[in-house]
């Protein structure tokens, strides 16, 4: 099936999310849609999938003009979508999830589960998915859940499959499996739109790459283009993909975590006997697939978790059972995972947000009164220093762009003397410019002798910043490895493989996702041999 978008324009008030976008997906091709966060990729796909009405432009399927007013229309036309966040019912089985919304019945309203099971089995065997139709979705690994989503689209006869940031939740090895699936689908004649901001992956899989920036198509590229070329197209200026940093001059341990265990409110052990230390002047990154206890680990250190056992000491002082306030005052800076929920008060002004955890201390307060003049002076200084683009210091922080919101949080946390900086997903959802900025500031902080603990699910970020890497899997520390460790090794560790074993396996089977250039040759050999 050939799919064509012509002049798609979508506005949200004054914001033009898509500006006359043209895109052609040829039958049986894997088309990479590359762009930064906020470039308009998701908006475009939501228009295509019937979730949003375009203000202008048309959609053509096999040269027939179509209008989609709902996802049902899009599905009927053969378009399937796998969202970044899966649309599955966790307590249903695979077969139940697959039939959901298109239930087959038998007799007077009886669900025909057998038919659904047969469908799942058929698709699964055809493509070698290895999915059990009777498995309950919540018990499946993320990679398999993704396959269930793909099966859902395929049983609805999708001939164009849209994958929105499909690798965000996968380890490199799982990504490889996904790549394999995509190749099989392609061989069977299905076209695939692969939305991503990850340069390495798009080069590894796509037949053609369309780059979008600020809602416009800025160009097409071949997968042979270098990462630097793609990055500068995506950002609109030359970008250095490597963060400049010297070797860490690590000093004495600042933060020592010993046997830390956290039980959450459902009485699940979410952090299981984790021990590590962070020394002054080094960055320790905690890597892992989302939801393996990293968030809870950090919250436990900050005093935001309730049922915590073990020991967390900051330069010898025990932090467990201390209030958040005491922890912050002991010289800990904290950049939380979700800036909108935990980092900022959206209705407060930029100036107020810049003193959110300092508001009752000199110089911002004396006694029980605050000093608005000092607060404003501070805000002007920070806005200048951290290049925060806000209308004024009295602009509500909630109205700023994601990058500027994050800069407010970073500016606040770095504006006092720190012994330890904890940053969780410090660059999630940010554009490349803001990512560079935040990374630079974190390294400056490290070089001033602060101990830095980073939690990130993005291997790019982990590799860019870390001096040492702690990998977590199901609440346990799989191991602590050097910052230069190959990503394939990290990927295996993120799936629970111990460090030594991971290193051995990774050396034997490098992944396509992480080593597109080397492995492409490898693969060809394999095929010719086979």
């Amino acid at each position, binding site marked *: 099936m050939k799919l064509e978008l012509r002049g798609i324009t979508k506005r*949200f*008030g004054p914001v033009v999310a898509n500006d006359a976008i043209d895109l052609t997906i040829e039958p049986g091709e894997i088309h990479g849609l590359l762009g930064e966060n906020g470039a308009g990729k998701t*908006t475009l796909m939501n228009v295509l999938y019937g979730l949003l009405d375009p203000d202008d432009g048309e959609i053509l399927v096999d040269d027939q003009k179509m209008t989609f007013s709902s996802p049902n229309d899009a599905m009927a036309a053969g378009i399937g979508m796998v969202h970044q966040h899966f649309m599955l019912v966790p307590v249903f089985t695979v077969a139940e999830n697959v039939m959901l919304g298109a239930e087959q019945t038998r007799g007077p309203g009886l669900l025909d589960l057998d038919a659904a099971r047969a469908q799942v089995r058929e698709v699964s065997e055809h493509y070698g998915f290895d999915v059990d139709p009777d498995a309950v979705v919540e018990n499946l690994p993320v990679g398999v859940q993704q396959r269930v989503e793909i099966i859902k689209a395929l049983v609805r006869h999708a001939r164009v499959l849209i994958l929105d940031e499909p690798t965000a939740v996968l380890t490199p090895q799982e990504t490889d499996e996904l790549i394999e699936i995509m190749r099989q689908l392609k061989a069977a004649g299905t076209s695939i739109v692969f939305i991503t901001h990850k340069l390495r992956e798009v080069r590894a899989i796509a037949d053609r790459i369309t780059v979008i920036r600020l809602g416009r198509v800025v160009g097409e590229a071949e997968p042979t283009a270098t990462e630097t070329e793609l990055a500068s197209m995506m950002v609109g200026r030359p970008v250095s993909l490597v963060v400049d940093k010297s070797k860490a001059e690590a000093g004495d341990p600042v933060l020592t975590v010993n046997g830390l265990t956290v039980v959450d409110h459902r009485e699940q052990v979410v952090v299981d006997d984790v021990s590590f230390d962070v020394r002054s002047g080094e960055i320790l990154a905690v890597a892992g697939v989302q939801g393996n206890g990293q968030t809870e680990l950090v919250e436990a250190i*900050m005093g935001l978790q309730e049922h915590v056992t073990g020991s967390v000491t900051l330069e010898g002082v025990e932090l467990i059972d201390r209030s*958040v*306030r005491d922890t*912050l005052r002991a010289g800990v800076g904290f950049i939380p995972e979700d800036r909108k929920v*935990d980092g900022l*008060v959206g209705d407060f002004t930029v100036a107020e947000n810049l003193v959110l955890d300092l508001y009752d201390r000199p110089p911002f307060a004396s006694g029980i009164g605050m000093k608005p003049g000092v607060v404003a002076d501070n805000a002007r200084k920070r806005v200048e220093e951290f290049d925060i683009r806000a209308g004024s210091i009295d602009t509500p922080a909630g109205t700023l762009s994601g990058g500027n919101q994050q800069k407010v949080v970073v500016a606040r946390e770095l504006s006092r003397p720190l012994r330890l900086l904890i940053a969780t997903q410090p660059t999630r959802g940010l554009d490349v410019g803001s990512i560079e900025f935040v990374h630079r500031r974190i390294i400056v902080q490290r070089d001033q002798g602060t101990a830095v603990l980073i939690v990130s699910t993005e291997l790019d970020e982990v590799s860019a910043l870390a001096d040492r890497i702690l990998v977590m899997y199901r609440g346990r520390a799989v191991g602590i490895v050097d910052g230069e460790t190959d990503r394939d090794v990290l990927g295996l560790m993120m799936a629970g493989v111990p460090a030594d074993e991971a290193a051995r396996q990774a050396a034997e089977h490098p992944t396509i996702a992480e080593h597109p250039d080397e492995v492409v040759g490898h693969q060809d050999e394999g095929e010719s041999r086979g």
Partner: protein
Amino acid sequence: MAESERPADAERRSTVGQRFWRELATGNAMVTLLSVVLALVIGAFLIMVSDPRVQDAASYFFSRPGDTFSAAWQSVSSAYSALFQGSLINFREYSIGRALRPFAETLAYATPLIAAGLAVALPFRAGLFNIGAEGQIVLGAIFAGYIGFAIDLPVVVHVALAVTAGLVGGAIWAGIAGVLKARTGAHEVIVTIMLNNIARFLIVYVLATSAFQRPGRADPISPFVHESAELPRFFATSRLHAGFVLAILAAAFVWWLLERGTLGFRLRAVGHNPNAATTAGMSVTNTYVAVFLIAGALAGLAGASLALGTERHLTPGISGGLGFDAITVALLGRANPWGTIAAGILFGALRAGGVTMQSRTGTPIDIVLVVQALIVLFIAAPPLVRAIFRIRVRAAEPVATAAKGW
């Protein structure tokens, strides 16, 4: 087990209050003004149809429609002019002092409304509903009144102590709700409503005890407070007393607290985003307790001003639903201290004028209550008012929100 500080809980605990406050804050002064006007217009219609003279004229409407219209005009204009003269200036009096007596009376009515309105407005800013001003007023009155009639002290000291006792009484009553909310997560609306009932029967009970009952009386009524404990009146002709100044000072204090105080900063942060407040090291639960203590003290001030200024003795009906009008006043004032003063004075004027209106034109004072209720209705349903007056919603707002996601 201590109340959990997990962000998810904090979120769930305050979303209703938060959302309501945001709704309230986004409305503009125009909507408020139009709500008042619209309520008065509907009130005028009710005055018309309930007036027997208009009903008579309407019975022969088709032969002489002019009679109906003139009777209606007559009825509405005389009622509203009585309302105006009873609340602002009485043109029939010749001396300035006597002419302004109605306005002084308006301010006398407004005094407890402002103080109690602040007691509702402040918790709004922290995302909390204080429905318990009524009970807090009663407790404030009991405490202040008891100090006022049971002990003897020099002039200034006595009144100061009695007022302070009132503040403490209100703070204790609200503090119960605050502590229950913070410790157990009990919803403050339920708790404060229940505390209102308890307070209502508590005052009936204490007034029957020998410590409180006026000697020689069988009904529940307390002795008059000593002269040394009275809040002094400004004019011989009016009940306006020093409590009004205290209410204005209280409003100034609330403004300072919200805009300049560290506690106010914390309170607003908790009201807008308890998660971020927790992450920044603020204690959400301590803030809840502090807010309720201050709110209770403000309602206690209203109680003290009734016990020591307006009534000067205790009766079971001393508050008379003031605590519920206070909710209206806080809404109308958009939970802002200056707005609360303005709304308190407006409601005081309706009360004072309503009495004159009833005595002069026979229009039932209930009309005033209907007008008050309508004002709340329109304030609470701004989209309705916007729709009626066709105020265009600024297109940028929803769009900006929608655009953020992409």
